[in-house]
């Protein structure tokens, strides 16, 4: 049976919008309302961030939202509790993203089992090495029906991209440029050589581009090179604005997608 992720990418739809936010930010109990509002606004895929004290691949925005979320009391058990009934309300693909240490402390198998019960579709753990995944965890991910999503960067050699592709079963997260999250320089989406190189490799899995995607221009540009793009830091900044959570989510997503013909 195809998973929600495989169905999403199987439709050959272009311009997929994936949004990342940190669970527990701005308020502890905002997780589910944000997910539901994102779905209503037409987002295709949601990445729910599990906050970590030392997020070394993240820029200041996600660092700060993680700090606030931890202070608000966000933990993995708390997140699972919030998401317990989520599948009664939405069928949007949901991916959890975070760092390995909190997952290890919870227990990797226990984590996968619980995520699977809730109806989570995949996991992104940037500091879980490919070799460790293949050696120790891949059978568990398969047993619990969860996709593990890997990152590739402009510096990732072709052979390694192929290896990553062979161990992926939903999509590949293409980091736009050498940077931590939240950079707004132009180097990201103008990395055309790299995007075309990956596009020309004939990979099994579709790619979506993340890091540095922060407005309609960068989103649209990224979508010309891959199946879609991911927005994180810019969305988190929008959540911090005055006004209701729902309005902030809607206004931001509209600012990315207005005038776009799907």
């Amino acid at each position, binding site marked *: 049976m195809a998973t929600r992720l495989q169905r999403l990418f199987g439709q050959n739809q272009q311009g997929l919008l994936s949004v990342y936010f940190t669970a527990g930010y701005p308020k502890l109990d905002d997780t589910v309302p944000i997910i539901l509002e994102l779905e209503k606004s037409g987002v295709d895929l949601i990445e729910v961030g599990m906050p970590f004290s030392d997020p070394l691949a993240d820029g200041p925005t996600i660092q700060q939202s993680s700090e606030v979320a931890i202070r608000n009391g966000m933990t993995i058990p708390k997140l699972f509790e919030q998401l317990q009934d989520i599948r009664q309300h939405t069928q949007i693909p949901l991916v959890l993203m975070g760092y390995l*240490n909190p997952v290890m402390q919870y227990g990797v198998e226990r984590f996968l089992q619980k995520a699977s019960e809730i109806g989570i579709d995949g996991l992104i753990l940037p500091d879980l090495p490919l070799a460790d995944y293949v050696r120790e965890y891949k059978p568990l991910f398969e047993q619990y029906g969860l996709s593990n999503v890997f990152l*590739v960067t402009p510096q990732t050699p072709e052979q390694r991209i192929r290896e990553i592709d062979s161990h992926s079963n939903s999509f590949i997260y293409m*980091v736009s440029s050498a940077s931590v999250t939240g950079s707004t320089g132009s180097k990201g989406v103008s990395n055309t050589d790299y995007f075309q190189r990956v596009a020309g490799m004939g990979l099994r899995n579709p790619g979506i581009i993340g890091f540095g995607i922060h407005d309609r221009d960068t989103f649209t540009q990224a979508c010309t090179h891959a199946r879609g793009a991911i927005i994180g830091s810019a969305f988190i900044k929008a959540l911090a604005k005055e006004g209701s959570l729902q309005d902030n989510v809607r206004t931001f997503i509209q600012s990315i997608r207005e005038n776009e013909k799907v």
Partner: protein
Amino acid sequence: MKYTVDENGFYGRFGGAYVPEMLYPNVEELRQNYLKIMSAPDFQEELQGLLRDYVGRPTPLYFAKRLSEKYNTQVYLKREDLNHTGAHKINNTVGQVLLAKRLGKTRIIAETGAGQHGVATATVCALMNLECIVYMGEVDIKRQAPNVARMKMLGATVVPATSGSRTLKDATNEAIRDWINNPEDTYYIIGSVVGPHPYPDMVARFQSVISEEMKAQLLEKTGQENPDYVVACVGGGSNAAGAFYHFLDTPEVKLVAVEAAGLGVDSGESAATSVLGKEGIIHGSRTLLMQTDDGQVTEPYSISAGLDYPGVGPLHAHLHQSGRARFESITDEEALQAVLELTRLEGIIPALESAHALAALGRIGAKPEDVVVVNLSGRGDKDLTTYLDRFGLHGN
């Protein structure tokens, strides 16, 4: 049993390279090249020349007569405090800068806590005419002003780490983020035996000159190259790794690793990772680290900024778990007493970090004929303000 790193970068179950894909090519480049470069004759010639003529090696192995009488055993001090810049840290920065140059890197970054590694890095960068950026927690910048001044004087840019707890662990995060942002031209000089493989092994090898010299010096002074005890302080653990290195597979040499208990191991204000830590991932390495039940890294405390790190190098985690090394923890107060004791008995003002190792002398149970080497990792100049305050020596 094997105590050096295995082919996958592990010490027993600890170590590895848990880095995001953005860092993978850099770490991999280093992994594939470090041993090759380090064993090349021209590299060794340049390194040994600098260690001798610039750093001032070999450092003396000094028989501390009055300290020996006090503890009723044979105490030798390995005088790493006499190195250029005042601590063992420069053994590693000289080596890594030479390695960075051979990898064609032009921009050097480093993290620092107390500032000793930052100063040692800035020093060698000045010597080699390389751009140098040092990340330092905002809190540490305030409490280690003299070392900040030295780094600036040497031409380094000191960047305050303003995230998290604004100390060493956050400075390390910022340095790693810089490396992610600048993968092509930048080399990251880690200051301790921490971080992703191959750093723990590479730093241990550069510091292993300490135990290599010890063996030759002991043979000359005592007729035997192996001591009964080697005692060293452990934050991340680079001086201890260097002092233990050539004795790791000689079980009759007892290794004593001394951590900072801060206000007491159970006080909530401590940096005794081997007691308080659990297995986890920090800065790309699987090791023991202080963390909450939810896996968030917690902030350690010690009066000594150099021991104030929530993790410990994976080698030391393995030495602890396997029982190869004995771990002791020393409080702020005990360390301060040891500072005063060494100063007044031997006329040597030690760094606060090294004083933790000295303070363990009374605990190890050495017999009168035993040979005990304490690695005196650094000098106390940087801690004088603390000493004057704590010993009430201001004014007349």
